[in-house]
């Protein structure tokens, strides 16, 4: 293997797409995705057993959740844009993209908090209540972790850690953020849309 | 209390079907193990060498993959297909009786005893007893299983496979004994401290004897004849027993513990833990937790005279 004759012609340290850190994030996302699969299995299983109405108090209202979904999906767009800008070396626009993403994500959590406060049932009311709050709650926790990651990336950007070539942390964090949004699409469809359609 | 829990002593059609399936499974298993163990031993014995005696490393042999094709795939596949066919057949036979069940008994699992309610032809449940299920010989009996607390499992090996008792849902199974006798069972889903002592019995009797039993169970508690027994009934009411136990025909309507209207007709107490004799009964009543640690029945504070009277009263509840 000619490259191994002089291995230091190969790049040192991960800059490429499939670096160990990138793979680690992919695998963590995979196992976290399974976590939501099992949460949703719990929901669908108890739904299948339910003798009365499911949800017991009628389908959840979309008035807050639907716009909130749009907000979160928009934040995926801004994240994508921010990552594109850093690959072009546009640090300023990259940091603005991070900031807007953060604001959108934080707003999502705020609006969800508002929805929680207005909900007629609690986690203790019945198994549906337990599932509703736990599933959306674990998702919200993932969003919160994502916000912390965005903060750290913002901080590192301020220290000048990133440029067009070296921004592995950005790729990983944006991948995580897209994952969190994708999970919301599935959760929203299962918990909010399906009961309103069925 | 004793009994035969063996899986090889079936006393009904379901039990027999499962025992036959068992013979197939166990015979094939033993055969496979003997063949493989023989091959292992033979392979070792036939050629053995020191580690560096010959430096040679063996190469792939012709047709060596036959081992995998035959032993690893073809033969196991045939055995498993046949086994699955027998299995599905047994599922079908044991799933429901060949003819309609004579009646239904609602079995409710508690920690650590079995509540039995016979559903009469008119839909009422006038016969309520505990732990000892009487059935007529040769008739399929439908059992509706549920739990009043945690998960239990109903199992009488001679008569059919086990079925769980889940809180909030009802499972249906059936038993049929084709010869008279007493068949022992036990709870087979870990349910807490006294899971080990939650036995049950099925007493299969000829049709007339069963009808007599049922009729006597329907009747309310007999009026106690002796003064001792009347004193005992008074003790029963004032010492708190009535708070947990029912004796039909008296003010005692408690539902926490077993119905005692005909307790004296049962062969055991404490779900098969103790024989139903005055001595054991006295010991149980005075200090149940000492005999069955963890039981929900508290020790009583009865004086010896009261205890004696109470046991005499319980003895009249045939």
């Amino acid at each position, binding site marked *: 293997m000619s490259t191994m004759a002089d291995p230091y012609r190969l790049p040192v340290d991960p800059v490429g797409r499939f670096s*160990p850190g990138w793979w680690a994030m992919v695998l963590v996302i995979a196992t976290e995705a399974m976590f939501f699969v099992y949460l949703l299995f719990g929901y669908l299983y108890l739904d299948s057993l339910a003798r009365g109405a499911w949800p017991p108090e009628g389908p959840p209202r979309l008035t807050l959740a639907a716009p909130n979904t749009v907000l979160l999906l928009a934040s995926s767009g801004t994240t994508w844009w921010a990552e594109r800008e850093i690959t072009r070396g546009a640090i300023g626009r990259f940091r603005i993209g991070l900031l807007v993403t953060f604001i959108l994500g934080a707003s999502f959590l705020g609006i969800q908090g508002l929805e929680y406060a207005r909900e007629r049932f609690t986690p203790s009311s019945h198994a549906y209540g337990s599932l509703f709050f736990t599933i959306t709650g674990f998702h919200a926790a993932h969003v919160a972790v994502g916000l912390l990651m965005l903060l750290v990336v913002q901080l590192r950007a301020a220290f000048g850690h990133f440029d067009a070539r070296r921004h592995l942390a950005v790729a990983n964090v944006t991948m995580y953020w897209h994952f969190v949004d994708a999970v919301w699409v599935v959760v929203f469809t299962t918990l909010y849309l399906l009961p309103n359609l069925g | 209390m004793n009994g035969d829990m063996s899986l090889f002593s079936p006393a009904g059609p379901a039990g027999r079907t499962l025992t036959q399936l068992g013979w197939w499974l166990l015979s094939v298993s033993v055969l496979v193990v003997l063949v493989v163990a023989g091959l292992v031993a033979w392979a070792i014995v036939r050629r053995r060498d020191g580690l560096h005696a010959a430096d040679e490393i063996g190469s792939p042999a012709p047709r060596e993959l036959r081992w995998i094709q035959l032993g690893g795939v073809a033969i196991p596949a045939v055995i498993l297909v046949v086994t699955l066919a027998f299995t599905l057949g047994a599922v079908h036979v044991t799933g429901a009786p060949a003819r309609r069940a004579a009646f239904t008994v609602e079995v409710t699992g508690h920690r650590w005893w079995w509540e039995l309610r016979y559903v009469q032809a008119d839909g009422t449940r006038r016969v309520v007893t505990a732990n000892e299920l009487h059935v007529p010989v040769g008739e399929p009996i439908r059992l509706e299983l549920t739990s009043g607390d945690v998960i239990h499992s109903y199992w009488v090996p001679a008569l059919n496979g086990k079925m769980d008792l889940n809180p909030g849902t009802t499972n249906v199974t059936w038993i049929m004994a084709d010869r008279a006798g007493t068949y022992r069972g036990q709870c*087979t889903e870990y349910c807490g401290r006294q899971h080990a002592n939650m036995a049950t019995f099925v007493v299969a009797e000829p049709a007339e004897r069963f009808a007599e039993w049922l009729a006597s169970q329907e009747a309310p508690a007999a009026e106690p004849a002796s003064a001792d027994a009347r004193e005992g009934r008074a003790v029963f009411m004032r010492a708190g027993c009535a708070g947990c136990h029912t004796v039909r025909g008296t003010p005692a309507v408690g539902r926490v513990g077993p119905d005692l209207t005909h307790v004296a007709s049962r062969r055991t107490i404490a779900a098969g833990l103790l024989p139903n004799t005055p001595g054991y009964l006295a010991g149980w009543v005075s200090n149940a937790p000492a005999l069955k640690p*963890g039981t929900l029945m508290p020790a009583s504070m009865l004086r010896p005279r009261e205890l004696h009277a109470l046991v005499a009263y319980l003895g009249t509840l045939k």
Partner: protein
Amino acid sequence: MTTGTTPVPLDERLTRLWRTAPGVYGVFATVDHKVIGRRYLVTSVVFLLLGGIEAALLRVQLATSGMRLLSPAMYDAVFTMHGLTMIFWYAAPVLSGFSNYLWPLMLGARDMACPRANALSYWTFLMSGIFLYTSVLLGQMPDAGWFAYAPLTGIAYSPGLRMDFYAIGLVFLGVSTTVGAVNFLVTIFRTRAPGMSLDRMPIFVWGTLTTSFAVLAATPALTVACAFLYLDRRAGTRFYDAAAGGSALLWQHLFWSFGHPWVYIVVLPAMGMISDLIPTFCRRPLVGYPFVALATVSTGILGFGVWVHHMFATGIPPVATSFFSAASMVITIPSAVAVFAWLATMWHGRPVLRTPMLFAAGFIVLFVIGGVSGVVTGSVAYDWQVTDTYFVVAHLHYVLIGINVFAVLAGFYYWFPKMTGRMLDERLGRVNFWLMFIGFGVGFFPMHTLGLAGMPRRIYSYHPGLGWEWQNLWVTIGSFVFALGIAAFLVNVVYSLRRGAEAGANPWDAPTLEWAVPSPPPPHNFERIPIVASRHPLWEERLSPDAPRTQLEGPALDAGRDTPGTTALDAEADEVLRMPEDTLWPFALALTLLVICYGLVAGRWWLAAAGAIGLAATIVGWFWPVRHQPSGAAT
């Protein structure tokens, strides 16, 4: 660079780059996979012994009817802790220990791909075990069984802290298992030696590779189940409450969706170890390598489709249970493929009966007994008779001890020389084997007949006159003989560490890469990175003299802590990976998790919150980049 002084030899240069820092700092900061692997092995054996003490107590209590060694309450706690300790804190971690130690050596690498994550997976394993055993000190051991069925585990029927230790402890251990699995997979994808394509990896690596995927897919089910349990107990939720729309069977589905793949997680690497050592002791390559690799992977996948066979008696409709019964039969086939591959290798080879091979031979017999008893229980109709009896206890111990423990012992005898530079004593090894094999047979075979005699499981005592006494006594006697075998193993280890014969690099004349380095290996494993050309690098000259050879003397890669990064399928080198220095972050992170767990179990939310803040800070610190000089050394 140096001028005017003699150049430092390559070996010395690499040792200085790779060795763990001395002193206490090094103890807590090491990221060397060999140190971490050894720690995993020793710690797992400690848990094995704890579980064994628990088993001894159970067996004395059951030796005859009416024993009063353990009260019902103590019995329930001891059988729960026995199951938890053995299944979670011994059976999988011991295999992680072997994997951690051996993978880089087998794969021609200088370390695992994520050395700091490796350290984290060990510290969390250790601390989760300490957390669980804190319950013993407080007299609050979990006591609702290792399987912990709801609603018995709810706060109403299980008051106190016991089942909180259970739920939190398992989630904590799950972090260890998950981090470990990620590390193994990244290692496979990125750090195999150049030329080590997937079809040249040892079967042991295929085993852990498969189980690492299974861990990622299955562990979340247990996390969800335990989260629901903890919330039901402490936050008033109603997941398992049938009266509120919940279901006790929800716990069972979630638990067994995890639990069944878990049983393959604790046996597939063990089977892989046997697949790799039988060829050595039969002096020829494994028959049907591709089929064995395929059998490993397909068992892992099929393992996700059989979980309902743990629930055959729950009242699930016959259509569903029949499907799962059929699936449980199908999964036998890949195991049969493996067994006959081993038999064929033995038949067409020249078996050398040293201690590892003795254990391998015993392993095969016990494997098949466990396998057929699995078919018996897999037949749904007959399972309705044997489930929840000692027949199942027999089955599970044949597969867990027969497959995992016997393979682990074989692995210890095989790789102890590599790890320590000394051979384990052969005579003591034979004593060890026969005590274990005979003790196991006497101790566990009668459990089959006890089950067929109707003895249920999980009972603290039984009536005289049911016909169970004699068999129980044999079981007790046999299990103590088995324990003597374990003792013989420990004696052998202690003796051989001081007085064992010197091993040399390849005492067994084995074919794979770990035998190309000194015993024990230097901190950097390989002085020169090998470039691999076949499945049996050290046998190439004798197996196929004309084929291209593995280059054992590849590049030195000595500018820093470097190892080659290679592509996932064909292992072509595409970058040089700079490995991290020793660091305290993994230990610190594990500590923050321990603080969170104690906060949760004690109901002190401020403590859990403090731990969470510490966790966030530690993660940020861990991932904060280290500035490197152009030469490669870190500042």
